[in-house]
Structure formats: C-alpha cells, structure tokens
C-alpha cells in the first residue's frame, strides 16, 4: 500500500498478557517512530529508529516496553505484562529522511487492557 500500515487495528488484552503491535512503514523510509496517544491528548514519543538502529528509546515508559526493527523496514512494539494504564492508541510514523520531521502516520492500534 501507499501509506503506513498498522496491525491489528484493535487489540483487547487481559491484564498481564503480552502483546505485539506491528508497523509496516512506507517503502524506503529511513526513519520510524512510535508514539502513544491517550484519549484527548496529543501523541507522546516512545522510540525512534533510523534504519535498523534504535537511536532513541527515551520515551518508553518502562522496561515492559520493547521495540525492534531488525531489517530496517517492519517494526514491532512489544508490551509485556500489560497494565490498565497501557490502554491507548499506539501510532507508528515513518519519514523518508533521517531525523524525520515530516512524518507520515498510520491509523494506529487501539489497545484496551481489561
């Protein structure tokens, strides 16, 4: 497809369950970002990849959050032992340039932890 694709679109998890969220960026885009958006809030930065290198993970809220982009394309955000406060929309964005200021966002994965 032409845009950033995220799956699943919706995910319901029981507290304590592990989840994996997938992002397919626009082909050839160097930069990939993950953001977390709570209801009524703006997106909050989680982590940044330039190709396969994770250059900034300062926004990950705890060591339960882990992201990877092993071949410099598809990325996965994994959350272990989910908690209710993890409920949010997780947005992936890509950019054709390093540093990536003009971001192309996917529609997000809405995670609900019960």
């Amino acid at each position, binding site marked *: 497809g032409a845009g*950033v694709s995220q799956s699943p679109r919706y995910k319901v998890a029981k507290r304590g369950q592990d989840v994996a969220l997938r992002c397919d960026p626009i082909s050839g885009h160097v*930069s990939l*970002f993950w*953001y977390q958006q709570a209801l*009524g*809030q*703006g*997106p*909050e*930065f989680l982590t*940044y990849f330039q190709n396969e290198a994770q*250059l*900034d993970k*300062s*926004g990950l809220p705890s060591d339960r959050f882990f992201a990877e982009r092993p071949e410099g394309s598809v990325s996965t955000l994994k959350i272990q032992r989910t908690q209710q406060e993890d409920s949010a929309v997780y*947005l992936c*964005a890509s950019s054709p340039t390093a*540093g*990536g*200021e*003009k*971001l*192309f*966002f*996917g*529609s*997000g994965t809405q995670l609900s932890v019960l």
Partner: protein
Amino acid sequence: EDQVTQSPEALRLQEGESSSLNCSYTVSGLRGLFWYRQDPGKGPEFLFTLYSAGEEKEKERLKATLTKKESFLHITAPKPEDSATYLCAFSNQAGTALIFGKGTTLSVSS
C-alpha cells in the same frame, strides 16, 4: 523545560466564520514548529513546517504563522470538512522526536 500549549481546547464555528488557533511554545533551540491535522480514528496528517519567526505557509483555507513565542493557524471561511483536531508540535536541538500539544478540536457546522 520545553513545552507547547494549544488554545482553545475546542472551537465551534459556523461555516464561513474565520478564526485562529493558538500554539504557545517555550523551546530552547527550536528546530521547527509543525502543524498536523487529525481526524477521528486516524493518525495525524502533516500540514505545515515553520522554521523561523516571521515565516508563513498557506494551504487552501489554512495559513500558519510563527513568532518567537507563538504560532497561529488561521482558518479562513471554514467548511464542515475542516472539522478535525489540529495538533501543534515542535522539534528541538536535543533530539529527533516531535513534541506534540494536546490539540484544538474544531467543529464547523453548516
């Protein structure tokens, strides 16, 4: 601490009623100021980047301006399809991430 504040939180306009959205920022070493549009259930969509005070950008009914402390998104003669949440964000010298405000939710009725 670098931060951005958007106002108002919500704005209701009649079709054709022009107005402005405000983004106040405190950033050391501003690299860029960005405006994005977000529709319900969608990710943000890029609108504009502004880099220096005095700069202006236009696209259809939207015009973005930048001063040393604020950015404005002016909406001229809005239509119902302009209804969305408008997000302001900045990047600074410290890192690559965009820092977003909470947004202004605009509703335009016919």
